[in-house]
């Protein structure tokens, strides 16, 4: 047919079915391009929104590799005349991207120090043998650590600890049990609630801080952020533990022998060695840098200084960092932030914000509720479909253009983007625990929906009762 062999026709059909989202978004973008710009939206803004639509559909469908989406965003920005090549290049790199790059590299450096065994010892020394205490311990340690080091690092380090406990309890590490569900979710949800605690808890927090500064809407320091958000982390810890315990109450109420075996195993690795001490010291210095130096140098540069020290002291090799860093994600966030800045500059964000406000005001009758609905509920839902950082990168400029106090709206959006409880793709930790094969997609919903609602309520209460008392 048409001069094609049967095999090449099959190949073409296969390509078309696998790339249907790419083709569909290409066709849609061409037809939108020839639509007249809606009233109040500049032609550049119109074209920027076309790029946003293409990017979102390609990220959600994963029909082409993520780095290809990143590159496509940059190409479209220039080809559609949204900005010049140099303009796009300068919006592509920012301190937020430095931070994401730095924190991914720091994660690799920390993970390779063998500190996971220390972490295991710390957890069981605090919690003892009772299973419910271990669950509380897992949630607390994951939350507290991930708020400083970042969730993907903590998720990766806590996973073997949980699996070792499961195996030591005499259960198969390949068979889903209530014990495996409760322990693995303690890690994932603990990391999620922890990541809101400081700006360095997740790339999305830094993206929001970057937007606030870039758009001249205000500055927020590392400590101010902690003051605003840490009470939420602390409040959430017992709630997460309780919800998980009720959803997956394991028959093993006591884990005496499992804990004992784990202690024996960990004791074999000996005391902290000098490299580990140095690695911890460097991280503490980075942490100090984030608190005291980031207002001057930026969070990203501080993170990169940490990477510099890890590399120059020989604590991690460049080969290792190069191999284990997800460069595709860095490219994608660079592009997404660049797109966010273009949305603001071309007025596309303002237009979408205006349209959303006028539409939702009919339903809610009150602009404060509308703002709250978009920054909390829409962000929370989108974060479970996309990924948290991409959600903030794209929604950030829109919510910031909705009026009200931008710092409050911005932080609310960042916090809601951590409500990644419902799907596998929502956060790296959700994917890490899913990859063990012990957690099914429906498990996420089972405990996650309650937590989602409670998280929204806690955020609401804290923002109404607590935030007005602290001066930001």
């Amino acid at each position, binding site marked *: *047919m048409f001069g094609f062999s*049967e*095999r090449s*026709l*099959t190949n073409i*059909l*296969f390509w078309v079915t*696998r790339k249907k989202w790419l083709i569909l978004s290409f066709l849609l973008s061409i037809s939108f391009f020839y639509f007249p710009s809606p009233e109040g939206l500049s032609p550049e803004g119109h074209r920027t929104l076309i790029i946003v639509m293409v990017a979102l559909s390609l990220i959600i469908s*994963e029909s082409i*590799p*993520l780095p290809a989406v990143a590159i496509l965003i940059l190409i479209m920005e220039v080809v559609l005349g949204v900005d010049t090549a140099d303009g796009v290049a300068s919006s592509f790199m920012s301190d937020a991207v430095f931070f994401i790059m730095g924190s991914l590299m720091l*994660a*690799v450096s920390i*993970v390779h120090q*063998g500190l*996971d065994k220390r972490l295991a010892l710390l957890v069981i020394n605090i919690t003892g043998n009772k299973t419910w205490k271990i669950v509380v311990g897992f949630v607390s340690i994951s939350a507290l650590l991930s708020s400083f080091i970042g969730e*993907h690092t903590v*998720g*990766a*380090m806590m*996973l*073997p600890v949980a*699996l*070792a406990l499961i*195996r030591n309890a005499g259960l198969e*590490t*390949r068979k889903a049990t209530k014990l495996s569900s409760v322990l693995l979710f303690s890690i994932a949800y603990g990391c999620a609630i922890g990541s809101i605690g400081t700006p360095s808890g997740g790339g999305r927090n830094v993206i929001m801080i970057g937007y606030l500064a870039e758009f001249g809407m205000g500055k927020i320091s590392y400590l101010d952020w902690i003051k605003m958000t840490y009470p939420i982390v602390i409040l959430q810890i017992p709630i997460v533990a309780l919800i998980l315990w009720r959803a997956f109450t394991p028959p093993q109420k006591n884990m005496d022998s499992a804990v004992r075996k784990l202690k024996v*195993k960990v004791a074999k690795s000996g005391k902290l060695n000098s490299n580990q001490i140095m690695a911890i010291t460097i991280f503490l210095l980075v942490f100090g840098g984030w608190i005291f130096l980031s207002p001057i140098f930026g969070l990203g540069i501080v993170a990169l200084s940490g990477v510099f020290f890890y590399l120059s002291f020989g604590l991690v090799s460049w080969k290792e960092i190069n191999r*284990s*860093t*997800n460069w*595709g*994600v860095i490219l994608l966030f660079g592009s997404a932030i660049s797109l966010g800045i273009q949305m603001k500059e071309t007025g596309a964000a303002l237009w979408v914000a205006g349209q959303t406000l006028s539409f939702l005001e009919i339903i809610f009758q009150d602009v404060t509720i509308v703002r709250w609905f978009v920054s909390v509920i829409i962000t929370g839902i989108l974060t479970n479909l996309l*990924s948290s950082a991409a959600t903030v990168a794209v929604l950030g400029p829109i919510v910031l253009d909705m009026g009200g106090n931008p710092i409050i709206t911005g932080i609310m959006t960042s916090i809601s983007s951590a409500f990644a409880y419902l799907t*596998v*793709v929502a*956060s*790296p*930790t959700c*994917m*890490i625990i*899913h*990859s*063990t*094969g012990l957690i099914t997609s429906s498990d996420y919903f089972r405990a996650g929906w309650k937590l989602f609602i409670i998280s929204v309520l806690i955020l609401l209460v804290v923002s109404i009762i607590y935030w007005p008392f602290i001066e930001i």
Partner: protein
Amino acid sequence: MKILIGISSKQYSGPTLDVGMRIASILNSSTTILDVGQKISEFSYKDVSIANELMESWDIDRPGVDVLEWDFEYLQKENYIKKQSNESSFSKNLLVDKGNGRSEVFLKGVAIKNLSLILRNGDIIEELRDEVQSFNYDLTIIGGSGKRSMAHDLIQYIDSSIFVVNNFNQKQKYKILLAVDDSKSTGKALKFGVRVAQAFNIEVDLITISNDQVISESLKKASDRAEKMMRRSGVRSKAQFVKGELVDTLVDFAKEDHIIIMGKSSHSPITKFFLGSKPLEVMQSCQCPVLIVK
């Protein structure tokens, strides 16, 4: 002949592995067992691989290795690989990374020709297709799936012949049900049927189905040719004509005690894509194993 056996989990893949290995060893073909693990999102695959490396430092197998271990133990139990005196159990050290997310288990003392064990991660159709295209397999053996789209994608996109081990019962004594018509693909299906029937020493029901009142000459000839071929090859067979619609008649006749063998559809890939095909309909509605010969 090169055979690929596709496995996805211990839970559902037992019969597939068993049937696949029996066919492979009787036909003395070079065989690959491919385990396809779940797809990891691109956002997180590096984080997951870091977590996997840490798990290995705790002597915990990374996901997927357990399925390989299960395959390995099965192969040893059934004497497809010889037991080594000092290394009787599966060891992770045998797992070699071949690049592109493809790992291979190094097998010692293999009793049948060219046996390999491969682990890949991703979408099952994409991984099977890539494996078949890269290494030119003649037959892919895979378990039945509840998903209708899976059968469609298998028939449409996998280049080799496909054997779907659907609803397989190890205690059942199966007969072969060969759908005969005057198309080119019937010839290939017949050859395949003869090999399987000879290897397993089973009887063949040759069935020619037509909706017309009078059976056409060409169909009669095709049926005669098929019968002659069976007789010459020493395979016990019974030929019959049945009036009716192809798919329903074939499925009703096959019940649960036949293995259906039929040739691929002669329509173009585009027609098959939009309108489906008879082999696809058979695969979706039958309650027994099906072999579509390409």
